[in-house]
């Protein structure tokens, strides 16, 4: 597959209280961002088990982004702290599975940051597009 035709598939886990609302705001504000993102709404970034990230990346996704509330803003007080603690374990495992570290991102996006959401997704899509398809993609 030539790189020009390659359209990355990115899975985004967005927390219900901030980032999903942020994505919503980007939508209702008619901000443009690439359609490569598939959003999965979760109650909290702290509930995204590393299993989900690794499974996604080894079973066909080209990138995974977890979006949560800014530290201190979590609806459940410290869910995003848990997500951040797991970030390092996830990055180590990417190495174990031979997946480039750029394919995974953890970002804090609040409900009012629609433009920032669009910008982060644009950046993420471009960096994954530059990497090419995931090594696990058949």
């Amino acid at each position: 597959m030539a790189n020009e035709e390659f359209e990355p598939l990115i899975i985004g886990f967005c927390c219900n209280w901030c980032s999903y609302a942020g994505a919503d705001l980007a939508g209702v504000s008619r901000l443009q961002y690439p359609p490569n993102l598939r959003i999965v709404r979760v109650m909290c970034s702290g509930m995204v088990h590393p299993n989900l990230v690794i499974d996604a990346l080894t079973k066909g996704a080209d990138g995974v982004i977890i979006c949560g509330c800014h530290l201190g803003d979590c609806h459940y007080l410290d869910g995003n702290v848990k997500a951040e603690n797991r970030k390092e374990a996830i990055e180590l495992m990417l190495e174990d599975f031979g997946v480039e570290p750029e394919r995974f991102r953890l970002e804090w996006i609040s409900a009012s940051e629609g433009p920032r959401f669009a910008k982060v997704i644009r950046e993420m899509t471009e960096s994954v597009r530059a990497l090419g398809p995931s090594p696990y993609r058949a």
Partner: protein
Amino acid sequence: MAIKVAEEWLNICGGCEVTILDIGEPLLDLLGELNFVHMPVLMDHKYFGQMGEKDEMEIPEADVGIISGGVRTEKEKKVAEVMRKQCKTLIALGSCACYGGIPAMANMYPLEALYEKVFRGSKTTDSAETPSENLPPLLEKVLGVDEVVPVDVYIPGCPTNPDIIVKAITCLLEGKEFKLEERSVCDECPVKREKKAAGGQIKRTLESVEFDQSQPWENTRCFMEQGFLCLGPVTLAGCGNKEGNGDGVTVPRCIKGNMPCRGCFGPIRKGANPLVDMMTAISSIGLDAKQVPDRRALLNRYIGAQNRLRPLPARPSR
């Protein structure tokens, strides 16, 4: 009437056969019910007739087939297939048969790289061609038995617990199904847990675990919380026996020897990924996941088959 049993060893050290012997006294009662018709470790039965005159591999028909060892060569693959055809029920005995076992750590490298290292790359060996004459060719990777033929009963462990073999065979004699309960080693481990590591550092097992043998188990702190890498959270339970005369607490075998669990019973359920689960467990109790040495091999030590260990995908040069 005695049921016919065929036993076959494939890519294995022979420890699981010793475990059958290790059943001890209950074996004497069982033997009356069993008639071993084929067992290379005990008797000299040729696959192609006594003089090698037959064309087809021959293993006598049996009610129960026991296979220990994973599948590494073309010959072992063929043996597994014939065993499946000749046996009504097939048991995978030991971690090698169930998940590839220790030999499956070779699955981290492509076959060519292994040949290169063993026959030409090692400093202490004279370079030689890869031997091919009179040897069955190796498969590309080490397989669990169930990757070649369907398996009815799994008895993992390296080596396994003699009591489970007795239970499995008794179940089969009574016509019942045998399956280990989907519980983790931690679920049956009696030590004291506080859900938080004592310090962030991971210790090596040569530093001794803190314990007091005169105290009951409830007073020993969880080994993982003491900072040792214990694979209990992601490993199937079943290795432990009840202490005393069968009325005490169940203690997993390695824990009983004051060593952390090494994970030989394999994943708790099919499709689980102990590497990922363990890394999560390590970071959530507050140990530093970076300090785990050789993560892939260590956390997949006995379970490299079924694609859990594979050569890393080649990265495009950037």
